[in-house]
């Protein structure tokens, strides 16, 4: 069974060579040359430095198209018209499934026809040269965003290609994304990704790593998300990563969101080794959006307001066209500018809301319960503990499609709109905390004059796209 131990150098080299033989572009990677390339990049393209030294939240959209020239044009637009501080390159689905051959076909078709035959940028196929052309064309740092369970070749090529930030992790890019990838398998593969980032870091090129905080994007209780962020942060730290951005997806209750971001930063600093610089990223609402751009702008506005109060290091923005899928570049840029306006108007205001400390305390207690359980399950080893805890259901993620998580925990909003746990299943938690959740949900049930039931869960899932935060029973029910 694998453990939370650093991959030895020779093992790193062995896997690296094996991995790079998986596609033709892998051969061009030369670590020493790549280090020199990163060193040649100007300060404003050094991702970790730019992010960590910012004095207010930096904004980053999502964006990826198959062709290099189109991707350059898209990112230039988002940088210039959307005023994005940090840029993304979202990878296509074939690459996420390691189907580089199919990605190649799609890319060739895109080059011939001009159509977007892939839903992202196939960085492995573009190879180091393509990646570097993109890095050089855009006057800002760029992160690789994907959703790939086995991202080893993608990491090898994009790191050498000049990208200095890489989203994902063994849990956060497994549990919400795929059904059958085993957790042990993805942990092993991400240990390599982190170890490779660590190898660059050792040489002074700090590759920023960003576990994917929103997980299933559907009413994830903050403590579950934070515990998984700490686990993935720890795994990355063990492999030598020193710049880690822990993520969190907005739930829509301002107090809970601010408390959660505070707790994320505090517990991240506490649990992760001192030599790691921990930053946070706030994802604007990842659940269902209203099928109406005007209402969607309201959701984005609430996200901007929350960011202005919580002041995370980075905000990933949504667009008013979220409902219909991939936004036009104009809509993507509009989401950035709406968020920017709200943040810039509100961030200099002192907005201290009552109850944030109490909510933060609750989130921290819950997270510590989960972390204690993980350490116990693993006899002190976080990798073993994570595997065993997911296996026993002591650790779980609601609405997880993966066979690696029970997906038996069910959340529901309380009367204030905070996400509580309605069905605990086997999640490890102090009885006192369970009682707090139960009392809060019971208060809501009283307000609504109905029993606590899965109906609340169902109603809450659709509430924001229907125009409300809490899924109250409708008048005609």
């Amino acid at each position, binding site marked *: 069974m694998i453990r939370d131990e650093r991959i030895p150098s020779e093992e790193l080299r062995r896997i690296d060579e094996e991995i790079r033989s998986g596609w033709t572009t892998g051969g061009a990677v030369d670590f020493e040359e790549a280090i020199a390339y990163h060193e040649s990049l100007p300060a404003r393209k050094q991702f970790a430095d730019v992010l960590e030294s910012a004095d207010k939240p930096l904004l980053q959209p999502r964006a990826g198209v198959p062709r290099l020239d189109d991707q350059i044009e898209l990112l230039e637009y988002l940088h210039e018209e959307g005023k994005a501080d940090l840029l993304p390159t979202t990878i296509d689905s074939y690459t996420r499934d390691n189907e580089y051959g199919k990605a190649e076909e799609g890319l060739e078709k895109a080059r011939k026809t001009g159509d977007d035959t892939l839903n992202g940028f196939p960085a492995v196929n573009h190879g180091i040269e393509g990646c570097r052309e993109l890095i050089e064309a855009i006057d800002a740092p760029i992160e690789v965003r994907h959703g790939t369970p086995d991202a080893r070749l993608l990491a090898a090529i994009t790191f050498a290609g000049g990208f200095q930030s890489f989203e994902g992790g063994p849990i956060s890019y497994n549990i919400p994304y795929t059904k059958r990838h085993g957790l042990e398998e993805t942990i092993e593969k991400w240990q390599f990704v982190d170890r490779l980032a660590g190898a660059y870091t050792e040489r002074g090129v700090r590759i920023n790593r960003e576990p994917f905080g929103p997980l299933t994007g*559907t009413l994830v209780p903050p403590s579950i998300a934070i515990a998984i962020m700490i686990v993935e942060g720890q795994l990355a730290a063990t492999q030598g990563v020193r710049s880690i951005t822990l993520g969190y997806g907005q739930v829509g209750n301002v107090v809970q969101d601010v408390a959660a971001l505070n707790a994320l930063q505090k517990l991240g600093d506490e649990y992760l080794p001192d030599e790691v610089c921990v930053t946070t990223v706030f994802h604007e609402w990842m659940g269902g959006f209203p099928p109406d751009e005007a209402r969607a702008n309201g959701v984005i506005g609430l996200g901007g307001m929350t960011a202005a109060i919580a002041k995370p290091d980075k905000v990933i923005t949504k667009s008013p066209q979220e409902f219909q899928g991939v936004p036009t570049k104009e809509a993507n840029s509009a989401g950035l500018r709406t968020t920017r306006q709200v943040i810039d108007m509100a961030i200099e205001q002192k907005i201290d809301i009552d109850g944030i400390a109490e909510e933060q305390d609750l989130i921290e207690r819950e997270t510590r319960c989960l972390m204690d359980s993980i350490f116990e399950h693993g006899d002190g080893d976080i990798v073993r503990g994570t595997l065993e805890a997911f296996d026993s259901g002591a650790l779980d993620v609601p609405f997880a*499609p993966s066979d690696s998580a029970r997906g038996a925990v069910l959340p529901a909003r309380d009367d204030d709109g905070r996400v509580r746990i309605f069905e605990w299943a086997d999640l490890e938690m102090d009885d006192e905390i369970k009682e707090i959740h139960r009392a809060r949900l019971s208060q809501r049930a009283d307000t609504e004059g109905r029993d606590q*039931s*899965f109906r609340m*869960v*169902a109603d809450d*899932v659709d509430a924001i796209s229907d125009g409300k935060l809490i899924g109250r029973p409708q008048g005609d029910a």
Partner: protein
Amino acid sequence: MVVNTMSRTVVLGVIGSDAHVVGITILEQALSAAGFDVVNLGVQSSQKEFADAAVEHSAEAVLVSSLYGHAEQDCQGFHEVLEEANVDALTYIGGNLAVGQDDFDQTRATFEELGFDRVFDSETDPEEAIAALERDLNITTTESEQVTVTS
């Protein structure tokens, strides 16, 4: 909550490569609460997995969910697979069954032709599907009268 005296088994799952889990999670809860024994296959389930589970658990109904728009393709030959396995269960399908669908009657006809007993759109409440199931399985409940069935 509707509680039945006799327990009936239904198989539930998302067909094809679709990974949308929220709908069946809630439906599973609703079916359990209504007294059914639920075998939840989860997302990305194949035709064969549905058939095997139906045989193994002697299911009286097979409920198929699809939200990513490729249901028609994923369900081609599904009823032949069930027949070969000697599954004699009700089959329901629900979700976003066609990309950019405007005319649900058209969509319903398509899936009825494929062999499904009932076809639901994505706006359907779990209660509605359960009420239909209870009727089709001749389950009498004290409360089923209260549920409006529009299928």
